[in-house]
């Protein structure tokens, strides 16, 4: 049995934050879960996927976050508890659904998990999704610990059902990827059968209906504020006159710093776990009891600005400090020492930070940048495109996935990136206003996610570029989740359909379509050249399974290669491919046979034909 399905209430188990969220959903009786994978949220869904195979949970990897939320909006409106999981930027994709779903509301509970990523450990921006609460008028809850990450899920479902509104469950990387012991609660049996009763005058927001619904939303927001005032997750600790208002992981740093600075008796901490709507009356009372207040929150001054506004309403003049006075930055994530230092400065407490080591004489440490894996099919594709476009003035928009790493030298394939699926749309733009040959890169899962509309646009508006679809048969970057192009039968999982990328590309009217096997170097270069010379929209589908994934599925791999005595040391293999299986020893090029996946690309480009497969002895 999956460990998160353990019935034993009161059991203590070491859980990752994301496992705790999944357990919280199980305890809350979740019946439906949908997602598009994205770090740092991915493990929540991995667990749901496994749980769904041995329980009555319905789970799906949807094509993108918008679709995931549409599915969950419908199941929640059919009366069953539903959860929709995504990374922070996924909310931008789902926003169109989200903003109007706030008008329509739900019947069964709907919790939307958004995993924010301060410092951008694995993201392209560090947007603060608490603003989505304010933007839409929906409640936001945020845990501070792994235990709360579990406990607050059931709470979020409860408020969702009381308000008949979706609730945003906002985390940050340091919640998702922290581990701590968690005490299990009881599992509520899920209500799995749903139905919808037709109510078009509340569920079809034509202008006349929407006008009523907006008023209804605002009235629900008032009820939500009352809930926030009485929430057990908005609590005050201590009786000092130095006030601190904090949320999420900042609360942990504040609590530790209060102890370290020995000022526990002087401060009063207001931990906000229900952060939209803010508990305004509670905050006003808190401000009146303080001489000075410091607001500690990662990201934007979301609470700080509200707190200042509330002070103005009460004509309070106490100092309210935070980001506007540079005690904290809007950049990156916090850490315990940073918060300790700011608290000491703010409240004028003697504090000498630990003396940092003098590292001025440290030896130079070689970088360890992430790299495409040994034998990665993307490397082979990039090489083919690079060779095929030699001598051309090119611009290469790229997209989100492992292949983004192709922008690094020596491949240096990737000049422009915005967000999931944008490579297709921006290629249209570049092809209109530059004289460069536009070559765009997009992965298979990203193509399904949001690349198709851009391609249709290109065909319809008759743009001129080559789209290279890097089809490695999985969503590799986030941990090999399936997508609509994956044959689930090969994974011994029944009940799924399958969508062919090639059929889509041809169906939308692309007239020059080529499928290449990127490990066949010469053929691939030739096919890409033809595509590049085509005037109009051309598509190259480069098909080869992700080598890591193939390894995990125990698929047969090619024999590893070695560098024979014929090698004259041109080093084209190293300088042009940069496959990590290569190493130099005693001035000679070698291949690590354990890392080598036998793709044979290097052997095909070696001018001396010196790279050969290792024969069985």
């Amino acid at each position, binding site marked *: 049995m999956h460990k998160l399905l353990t019935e034993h209430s009161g059991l203590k188990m070491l859980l990752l934050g994301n496992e705790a969220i999944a357990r919280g959903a199980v305890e809350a009786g979740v019946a439906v879960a949908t997602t598009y994978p994205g770090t740092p949220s991915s493990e929540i869904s991995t667990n749901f996927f496994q749980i769904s195979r041995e329980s009555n949970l319905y789970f799906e990897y949807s094509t993108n976050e918008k679709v995931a939320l549409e599915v969950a909006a419908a199941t929640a409106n059919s009366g069953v508890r539903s959860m929709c999981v995504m990374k922070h930027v996924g909310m931008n994709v789902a926003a169109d659904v989200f903003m109007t779903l706030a008008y329509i509301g739900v019947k069964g509970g709907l919790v939307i998990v958004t995993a924010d990523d301060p410092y951008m*450990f694995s993201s392209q921006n560090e947007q603060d999704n608490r603003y989505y609460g304010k933007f839409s008028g929906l409640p936001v809850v945020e845990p501070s610990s792994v235990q709360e990450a579990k406990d607050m899920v059931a709470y979020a479902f409860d408020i969702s059902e009381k308000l008949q509104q979706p609730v945003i469950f906002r985390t940050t990387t340091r919640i998702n*990827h*922290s*581990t*701590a012991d968690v005490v299990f609660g009881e599992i509520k049996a899920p209500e799995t059968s749903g139905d919808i009763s037709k109510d078009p005058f509340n569920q079809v927001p034509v202008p006349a209906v929407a006008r009523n619904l907006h008023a209804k939303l605002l009235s629900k927001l008032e009820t939500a504020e009352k809930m926030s005032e009485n929430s057990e997750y908005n609590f005050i600790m201590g009786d000092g006159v130095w006030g601190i208002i904090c949320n999420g992981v900042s609360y942990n740093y504040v609590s530790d710093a209060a102890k370290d600075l020995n000022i526990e008796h002087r401060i009063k901490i207001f931990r906000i776990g229900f952060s939209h709507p803010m508990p305004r009356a509670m905050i006003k009372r808190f401000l009146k009891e303080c001489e000075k207040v410091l607001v500690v929150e990662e990201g934007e001054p979301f609470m700080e600005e509200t707190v200042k506004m509330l002070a103005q309403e009460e004509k309070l003049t106490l100092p309210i400090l935070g980001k506007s006075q540079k005690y904290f930055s809007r950049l990156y994530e916090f850490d315990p020492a940073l918060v300790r230092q700011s608290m000491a400065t703010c409240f004028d407490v003697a504090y000498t930070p630990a003396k940092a080591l003098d590292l001025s004489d440290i030896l130079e440490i*070689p970088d360890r*940048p*992430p790299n495409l894996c040994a034998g990665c099919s993307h490397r082979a594709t990039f090489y083919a495109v690079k060779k095929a476009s030699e001598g051309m003035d090119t611009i290469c928009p790229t997209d989100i996935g492992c292949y983004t790493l192709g922008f690094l030298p020596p491949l240096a394939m990737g000049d422009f990136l915005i967000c999931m699926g944008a490579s297709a749309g921006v290629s249209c733009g570049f092809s209109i206003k530059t004289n460069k040959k536009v070559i765009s890169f997009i992965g298979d899962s990203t193509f399904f996610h949001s690349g198709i509309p851009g391609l249709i646009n290109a065909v319809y508006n008759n743009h001129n570029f080559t789209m290279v679809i890097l089809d490695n048969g999985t969503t590799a970057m986030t941990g090999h989740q399936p997508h609509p192009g994956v044959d689930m039968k090969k994974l011994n999982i029944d009940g799924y359909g399958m969508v062919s990328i090639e059929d889509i590309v041809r169906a939308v009217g692309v007239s020059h379509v080529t499928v290449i096997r990127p490990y066949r170097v010469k053929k691939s270069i030739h096919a890409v050249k033809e595509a590049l010379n085509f005037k109009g929209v051309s598509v190259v589908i480069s098909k080869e399974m992700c080598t890591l994934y193939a390894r995990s599925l125990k698929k047969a791999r090619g024999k590893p290669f070695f560098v024979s005595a014929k090698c004259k040391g041109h080093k084209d293999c190293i300088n042009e491919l940069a496959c990590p299986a290569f190493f*130099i020893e005693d001035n000679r090029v070698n291949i690590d046979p354990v890392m080598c996946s036998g793709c044979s690309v290097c052997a095909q480009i070696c001018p001396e034909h010196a790279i050969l497969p290792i024969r069985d002895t």
Partner: protein
Amino acid sequence: MNTTRLIIVAVGGQGNLLASRVIGEAALLSDIPVRMSEIHGMAQRGGVVESSIVFGDAQSTVISDGEADVLLGFEPSETLRALNKCNLNTVVITNLAKLPSFTVTTGKSVYPNLDELQELIRKKTAKLIAFDAASMAIQAGNVLSVNMVLLGALIQTHTVPLSTENIKESIMKRTRKDFVESNLKAFELGFSAAKGLG
């Protein structure tokens, strides 16, 4: 109870996350409060994996620069890179078996000299325990048990509040059945190795 802060750095694939899990489980078995966090963005693609483990009365799961009590490094150049997490009182334990990054293996940059590296760490911190954990892993019968060798060295130093018994129980519980024997052997080898060093 006092707070102890442990940083583990490794290269993706060295079993750092499993070692952290074993430590966490052992803490749970001995009723020691523990919280951990991990950063492993692109570990599978050759990057660095860092775990922070905080024992005792604290709520934070991350460790600021200069605030690690113990630094456990699975690879010598990564141990050196993480020295910003240390202070004068930090105990450093490191594997000396190199895993040179691609820039080094292809002659684009130079791996630091191991003697100089140890000299530097020794000069700047309270104590350095350094040995070749990879050869001990091979001796234990499993080349992948470097993490267990280093775990043995860590426990021997008494720098973290965990007993040998609890760690062993945790190894039996948390690691794959067919590897338990070699893992325990690796643990013992690391434990003994650390005795004579530092």
